[in-house]
């Protein structure tokens, strides 16, 4: 488990990360979203022990991460602009990582390179941006670390490769309980892979919630009533987040138990009612509106 408690970081007088507290559970995929300059990269660099927090603590499996080799052995960090040795080939890179990471899986590396159709003997500096990203992910997977930190890793991958990487992640998570921490400015990128999402804004964390919980607690129902009803009366005791009416068609977003909400609607004997799936974006819009932010202005 990774625990960040009241973590702050300043660059001269600029507050990059401000009192961020987050808990990342093992086996979860943690998505860190936010606009440019929200502090995602800084937070991940602190998680990776590159930057020393000016305040607060970051612990990986109970160990302080900064300048702690035991903690650093637990993760692999893929930066948004990964460094590769000049003139090196993936094969040479593999050898280097074999020295650094004792569990580096050489065979898996070769297999994945073949699978992604990347030439192991070709110089990395001739690779495209997307190919370099793929290579970083392959190295990260093969390092066999418990955690993998990805800073904007999916940015630059084509949809096919993105899906391929996601499926590899899913496999690693299921097989060896790997925990990816993925930072991105794009919510849609994280939607189908993250279990838990933290939203950073201006260095501070707006919210950090389990996606499943969020999905369970917020519901969107479309319905047409036989006659005009007092919606607030129908849903008394249930938190209504949004009510949208077009003609006789109501679209209601409410927080609460799904069965309770549908039961209340059924009691009015509606002409039509249906529970719609919520996108991550909609969930975030709802959640951030609660805390007084308009997420459309923050991301997307």
């Amino acid at each position, binding site marked *: 488990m990774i625990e960040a408690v009241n973590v702050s970081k300043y660059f001269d007088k600029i507050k990059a990360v401000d009192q961020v507290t987050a808990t990342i559970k093992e086996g979860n995929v943690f998505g860190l979203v936010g606009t440019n300059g929200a502090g995602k990269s800084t937070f991940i660099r602190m998680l990776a022990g590159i930057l020393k927090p000016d305040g607060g603590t970051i612990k990986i499996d109970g160990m302080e991460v900064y300048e702690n080799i035991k903690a650093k052995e637990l993760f692999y960090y893929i930066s948004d602009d990964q460094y590769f040795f000049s003139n090196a080939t993936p094969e040479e890179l593999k050898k280097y990582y074999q*020295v650094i990471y004792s569990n580096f899986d050489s065979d898996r590396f070769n297999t994945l390179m073949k699978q992604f159709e990347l030439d192991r003997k070709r110089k990395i500096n001739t690779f495209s941006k997307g190919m370099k990203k793929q290579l970083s992910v392959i190295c990260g997977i093969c390092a066999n670390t418990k955690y993998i930190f990805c800073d904007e890793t999916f940015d630059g991958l084509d949809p096919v490769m993105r899906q391929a990487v996601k499926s590899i992640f899913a496999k690693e998570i299921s097989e060896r309980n790997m925990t990816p921490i993925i930072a991105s400015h794009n919510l849609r990128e994280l939607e189908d892979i993250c279990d838990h999402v933290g939203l950073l804004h201006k260095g501070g964390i707006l919210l950090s919630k389990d996606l499943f919980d969020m999905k369970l607690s917020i519901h969107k129902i479309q319905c047409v009533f036989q006659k005009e009803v007092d919606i607030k009366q129908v849903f008394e005791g249930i938190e209504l987040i949004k009510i949208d009416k077009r003609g006789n068609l109501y679209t209601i977003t409410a927080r609460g138990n799904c069965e309770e909400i549908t039961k209340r609607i059924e009691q009015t004997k509606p002409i039509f009612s249906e529970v719609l799936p919520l996108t991550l974006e909609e969930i975030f819009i709802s959640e951030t509106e609660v805390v007084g932010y308009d997420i459309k202005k923050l991301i997307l």
Partner: protein
Amino acid sequence: MTSRNLFFKLMKEDIKRRIWTIALASIVFFFSYPVLLAIMIEKYNSYQYKIEHVREQILHFVGIRSELGVLIVVCGAAICGLSGFFYLHSKKKVDFYHSIPVRREALFAVSYINGLLIYLVPYIISILISFIILSINHVMSGEIFHEVLKAIGINFLFYSLIYTVIVIAVMLTGNFIISCFGTAVLLIYGPCVLALKEAYFSTFFHTYYMKNQDMDGFVLFLSPIGRYIETIQKSSSEIGGNIVITLIVTILLIILALFLYTKRPSEAAGKAMAFSISKPVIKIMLVVPLTLAGGILFREVTYGNSQGWFFFGLVIAFIISYAIIEIIYNFDIRCAFLHKKELLTCAGMIAVVILIFELDVTHYDSYLPSKSDIKTMSVSVDGLDEDIHYSDKDTTYINGEKYQLERMKLTNFDNAYDLVKAGIKNINHDEDGYMEGTYGYNVKYTLKNGKEVYRAYKLTSEDRMKLIKKLYENQEFKEAHYPIYQLDAEYIKKISCYNTFENKEFSLNQEEKNQLVEDYKADLSNLTLDEHAKNPLAYITIRLNNENLYDYPVYSSFSNTIKFLNNHGFNATDGVTAQVVKEITISNNQDTSNDNTTDNMDGNVMKIIDEGKTIKYQDQQKIRQILEGLVEDQHYYMNQAVINVEDMVRVDMVVKKDNYGNIEKYNCYFRKGNIPDFVKKDIGYIE
């Protein structure tokens, strides 16, 4: 803890990343040693030089004093230092290296040690190839082997020192260009500050004695390159202390570099300075001396050493240096005058320094310790025996002032003390710099508390003779002033003697050499300054085993020496007498202009200079009278502090050397007040 296995694997991987520096080092060493050596040997073989000569040349080439070796050390250290830790200036490289599970200490050690090996390994391989070439050509010797090993050791030590200093410069900065500036600052800051100090002391204080007269002094101060050059110039027996100090300093600097590496924030990559805390310190350390340098530069290059230009230089240099440093720190020209407190601190410090010098707050010029505080004094007088050669332990010639101030220990220093008092009194007369008839002298006070204080004073002609005469009577003064008192006759190779008429080389056994030296010392001890002012009768030339030559004058009062020389077939009794002078020509160069004036082209009044009269004398009676008042110009030039002459009256003397018509020409002056009346009349001398 990084395992040893991992450490060596990391070293191997790091070496792979630094192939270009290895290739460069290998090429440089290969061409600098085996190839050049082979060319040299081929050349020497074709000219059929003696093997000793060839070995001597090779020793210089591959030995400790090789200029090429020094160049390789300095350039190699700069390249390896900057390239080895260059990754610290790149955010993505820092992110990479600092995220992997390797301790920073290990990362530092890997890069640092590889930087040493990149120099050392190609060096040793090239030397081994060179040994093979030398052996094949039958030039190899034990001395060469020993000298090369010594050279490798010392070069490597100083490579490590300079390399570590450059690594520290990289640690302190976050940008390659700034690192290069930082390197330059760390390598030359000391000498520059010392040069600035010398400039201010010599400009503002009249009594400042510039101890570091040679460039070595400037270069040495806190400069690893200077220390390196000084060490290789010393003989083997003298470098032990330097080696130990350098080794200790290098180890301390390595510890400092490691400390900085571990404390260096990763976010420093790309910034000008890595540590915020060092910014104001470095800024003050640069702005203050740069401003002071600007002031003194404008003062010195402008006409009349103007104070106005001095302050103009200070202001301009302050504004420019402060602004440039702030711009570099912030990479933004709009930040040129940020941090007002630091700006005011710099200005305040500069103002304090200027006030100290302008007002002589420390009473530097009037410094005179009480007699009870002084243990010994040393005095070196300018314009007294300037022709004496001084040497350090009979090996190399050294500066006479340095020799005398170091060796002289006047315990009876009353006369020297009076001399200093007169010098301090004279400071105000000397404000405008040069004064005719003013000669300087340097003093070292060795105080009872162990402190050594140096001062330089000037004295006008009125006081000069009286005070120096008393000082000259002090045997302690003479023993440090004349190096013959320290001469060990065992080192004498040959002794000869010459004067106008004769040049004779003696064949003396050791006992006779000792005798001559002892006789000379006894005579010298009794020499008075009045006698010293007369023309020497002859000069004894002593050649030492190391081929150093020393001329010692023989005056008419040197009865023991003259007797010895006479006994060994050299007539030192007679100097130049009227009988041997063929003719004397006297020219009066005084300004004998009358009141006639004329206007020049510009309308300014211009004096017409009368060239005076030139008279030739051949009458023996007149020549005898003239001779009594003459002093040879060379003797005068070497003793101007103690000989006063009529310098506007020139005397040319033709002496018959032998009976075969050979002559010798001399230029002389009349001692002050010694022009015979008939000469004055003849040449129209104006009193």
